[in-house]
Structures are given as structure tokens and as C-alpha cells.
């Protein structure tokens, strides 16, 4: 039986408030546990409000913070023990991030293609510039762009949707098994949002990449997730199959979340539901 792709057991994170004399401690994450299998690609959504601990959880999975208690294991190896350069490199080759703000994900003063080429050289197996360019082009095509559109461009020349897709292409160049996407579409225009959300589904179905999708938007979560975890103040209140949980939430907090979602009411029951886009 192979080790799961990623496994969290009893993970907690407590931040001490600033100042040596203060004894106030903030429990950002308390006793969270879940696992993603290594043989089947899945999209796991973590839903919660701001301050629910979901971003802290994401940072711990990405190795940017270490848990105060509990363990995070990537393919069987404890993430907190990965210190050496080789371990770090292996880690980065397995887990890649997608950040919330596409305009901040790249240095505004540098060209976008440099990040792509660098990732291709360091992780994608490209030996020289030509191979790096070919690799970058292939990755960009997978996300619906092309190198011609992105080459030589600075971040401000592209829209939020294009930037986020470039960020995904860069992550793909490292050939990861897991993507951790922290609110990837909340800063992207509504009209462009669905193409990126659908892209995540394509990555799961065609490239067998698992995705941990962190969001506060229940509707997109419904659309693409296999499983869902609902966080409240750092604790898991409900988890399970995404569609089941979202259509019939059990926990009162989950119900409260669902009822707070503002949905346009369409007069006429089924006509709008099955309405196809113009």
C-alpha cells in the first residue's frame, strides 16, 4: 500500500502574540487531519471565512510555516524534517503553489517568461534555452495561452485571468503532483473566473494532478471538488463528499454558510437552470 500523496494528522498551529510578556496565544489551526491518495487525482476544497485558518493551513502544506503540533507527510516523508537542499528541491518538484493575487505573483519589474524558463531549467528537465522555450510554450498551451502572447511581457500588460493562467503554467513546468491554490480566482474578474476553475478540472482529469483548492466561494467549490472540508476558527466542522455536503449540509455552521450565499433568483423554475450560454 503506497503512502498517500499528502497526509495531515492532528495538525495545529498556534501563534504567540507579539511581546515577550504577553501570554495571549492565537490558535490558528486546531487538530486538522485529512489525506489525499497518491494513485488517484482529486480536488479537495477547504472552505472557510477569513480568519478561519485556511491560509495558515495552506502555508503549512507548502512548507512556509511549520506546525506547532501534528505532522504533515508528503509521500510518507515528514515535511518539517525536510531541511537539506536536495530535500527542498524534491519537495518543490512535488508541490507547487498558486497564489491569490495574480498581480503580485510575479515581480512587476521583471518579464514573465523568465520565471517560466527558470522553472523549466531547474525542474522541467530543459537543458538549454531552446528546450526551456519549448517547455514553456507547451505548458502555456495547456492553460490556453501561448509563448507568443507572454514572451517579453511584464505583468501589468496582462489581465488578472491571463496572469493567473501563467502562474499555473509555471507551476505545471515543475511537473508537480499536488497544487495548492489559495483563493486563486477571488481577484480575477467574474467573466474569466470559470475558465480558470474549469482548468483545474482539466488538470485533475487529464494530467492527474491533485489540487487543494482553498476558497470562500461555495459555488465554485460545488462545481469542481471531489471532497470538501469546512473550517471554522481553525477546526474542521464538516467534511466529506463535496456535492453531498453542499447540497445537504449537516452542521449548523455549514448551513449558515450556505444560506449566506447570494444567488440571483430567476423567475421560472427550470428554464434558467438549463439555459446554455449565448
Amino acid at each position, binding site marked *: 500500500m503506497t503512502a498517500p500523496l499528502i497526509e495531515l494528522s492532528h495538525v495545529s498551529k498556534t501563534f504567540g502574540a507579539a511581546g515577550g510578556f504577553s501570554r495571549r496565544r492565537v490558535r490558528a489551526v486546531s487538530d486538522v487531519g485529512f489525506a489525499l491518495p497518491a494513485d488517484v487525482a482529486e480536488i479537495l476544497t477547504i472552505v472557510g471565512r477569513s480568519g478561519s485558518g485556511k491560509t495558515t493551513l495552506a502555508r503549512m502544506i507548502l512548507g512556509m510555516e511549520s506546525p506547532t503540533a501534528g505532522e504533515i507527510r508528503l509521500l510518507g516523508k515528514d515535511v518539517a524534517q525536510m531541511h537539506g537542499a536536495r530535500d527542498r528541491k524534491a519537495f518543490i518538484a512535488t508541490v507547487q503553489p498558486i497564489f491569490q493575487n495574480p498581480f503580485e505573483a510575479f515581480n512587476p519589474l521583471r518579464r514573465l517568461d523568465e520565471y517560466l524558463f527558470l522553472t523549466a531549467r531547474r525542474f522541467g528537465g530543459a537543458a538549454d534555452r531552446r528546450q526551456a522555450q519549448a517547455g514553456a510554450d507547451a505548458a502555456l498551451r495547456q492553460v490556453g495561452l501561448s509563448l507568443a502572447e507572454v514572451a517579453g511581457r511584464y505583468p501589468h500588460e496582462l489581465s488578472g485571468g491571463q496572469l493567473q493562467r501563467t502562474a499555473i503554467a509555471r507551476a505545471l513546468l515543475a511537473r508537480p503532483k499536488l497544487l495548492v491554490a489559495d483563493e486563486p480566482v477571488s481577484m480575477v474578474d467574474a467573466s474569466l473566473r470559470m475558465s480558470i476553475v474549469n482548468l483545474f478540472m482539466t488538470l485533475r482529469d487529464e494530467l492527474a494532478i491533485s489540487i487543494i483548492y482553498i476558497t470562500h466561494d461555495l459555488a465554485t467549490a460545488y462545481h469542481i471538488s471531489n471532497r470538501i472540508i469546512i473550517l471554522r476558527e481553525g477546526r474542521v466542522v464538516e467534511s466529506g463528499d463535496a456535492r453531498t455536503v453542499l447540497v445537504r449540509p449537516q452542521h449548523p455552521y455549514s448551513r449558515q454558510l450556505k444560506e449566506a450565499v447570494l444567488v*440571483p433568483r430567476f423567475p421560472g423554475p427550470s428554464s434558467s437552470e438549463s439555459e446554455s450560454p449565448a
Partner: protein
Amino acid sequence: MESRAPLDCDRAARTRQQAEVALCVEDLKAYYRTRHFGVEREVKAVDGVSFEVRCNEIYGLAGESSSGKSTLIKAVAAAMRPPLEIVGGRATFRFLPGARSLNQATASQLAAIRWRKLSYIMQGSMSVLNPVRRVRCSFADFASRHLGGNKAAFQVRVRQHLELLKLDADVLDAYPHELSGGMRQRVTIALATICRPDFVIADEPTTALDVIVQKDVLDMVRDIQGEMGSSLLLVTHDLGVHAYMAHRLAVMYGGRLVEEARTPELFSSPQHPYTKHLIASLPRIGVDAPRIGLAGSPPNLAAPPSGCRFHPRCPLAGDRCRREMPTMIAVAADHRVACFAVAGAGGTA
């Protein structure tokens, strides 16, 4: 799913009052003109926008990035600074009939208007509340600057107002950073409405808040609008918020309006291809049909496409769309569209 019915209150009374126009915007054009080291750039952020906001109504303005809606608010509310200039058109408020726009009002006129006739609810609530003083002091500053009158009477008025908004009175003793984001926003709304202004502009009031708090804040805004009978110009990219709040709704794209209608009608029968696509792409819990995003990118307002701004991304684009810019034409009662491909709006389709 539960939600309060927003639109079936005293229709008759509202229709009577709504006949009056609180804000009239006619062909407003506002550009950013910059000049750095000999390079001149002109960004046509708002390029010919006309609409009316009636009394006692919530008018929603929807748009994404580079639609120009933020610039529109700045131009209308006289919150402009160079390099933003009004290049043409007018924005006239009912309470200041002489001026073509608020930018022409004198400083003393503006001081008299702010918070009493026109007030704002902004996204960053911290910019209204002084972070180093208690909330009580922010209210007191208001009294001295905008209301005059004696302190005791004002204190009573503050408490009454807070009660009306269902806010606990001990929020006055807190510092802004001690309150949660939602609480701060509610205090900001209280401040903005204490003088019972005729017109309120809300710019992304709940974008930084999470879903549960957002609903409470929106309920509060709606209650107070109904109670004061004022007009509210609500600007946000979130269509769900518009569906919940707005009586009428306009959609902006590329610096121009593309469609405007009463909210239920806009959602049930959108006419413009952009609106249609936007609404159809919204995912919903319980609906398994696939959703498709819009291809292409928002237009670059420094070098906008010729003719209709939407034509590069429009599935119905024709020759005329590439050459001419469509104008808003009424296709039904209280429903305007700017598109050549819509029957009755100047097109043949």
C-alpha cells in the same frame, strides 16, 4: 435557500417618489491624461456614460476590472485628482441644480453637501475611522463639523441612530482595530447615514467581508435606505450582491454602459451578449450543468478596440460592430441595451 424578498414592498408609494431624479449623468467622459518624459497616454476610463438614479431607489452598477466604474464614481462625486479629468458631459445632483457637476461647486458648497446631502460608504472602512481614537470621537468630530448644535442632543441622536441600525451602543467605546471588519463597516455605515443624506454612494462595500457578515451588512444598508427614502448608487462587481439589493441595475464594460434594466428582468432576460455570458457563467450550488468562462481579456482602455468595445470577445460580432459604437436604446419598458445584434436596438439580427 432563504432570502428576504427585496422588491415587493410598497410599490405604489415608491413609484410615485421614484419619478423624481436624484442624479442625472449625461454623456460623461473622464480620461486619465498622463505625461511622463515626453510619453503621452490617454486612458479613456469613462467614455460617454448616461444614466439616471431616481429618488428612493437602489441603483446598481456592475462591472469588472477596467470597466471604468471606479472612475465613474470619482468623477460623479467630485473625488478627482489629476491626472483624472472630466473631458465632457455632466453629472447633476438634484440637491445642487445649478452645477454641471460637483467639480464645479465651490468649497463651501461642497462642505455643506458632504455627509448631509451626499455621503459615501467605501471598501476600506479604516479610512473613515481614525485608528488612534475611539469610535465615539469619530462621531463627535462629525457633530462639530457637519451638524453643529449642542453635544447632548447629538449624543441622543447618535444612540437613536445606532438603535435603528441594531448596533450595540458600547461599540462607541471601542477603538477601530478592536472591532471586526464587519463591525467596522457597520459603524462606517452608521456614520455615513447619521445626517440622513439624500444620496449615498457605496463602492464595493462588502468586498472585503466574508459571506455571512456580508449578508448582515447588506441587510442593514437596505433597511436604512428604505427608512430614509434616499437614493443609493451601489457599485460592485459581485452580481449576487446586485441581485439581492438593487432595484435597477446597469452593466458597464470598457468605459461604457452596455445594458440597464430592472433587476429581475436583467437576470431573467438579459439582452447584451456580455450580460448573458456573465450571468450564464455563474456557478450555483445544486446545478450540475457546465459553466463556461468568457474568452479573451478585458479591453485596454489606453488603446481600446474600434467600434463596440466588446466586439473582440463577442460571439455575435459583425462588421458594423467593428466600425461603429452602439448607443443605449430602449428595447422594453425601463430596459436599455447598447448592441447592434439585439433586435429593436438598431440591429437587424
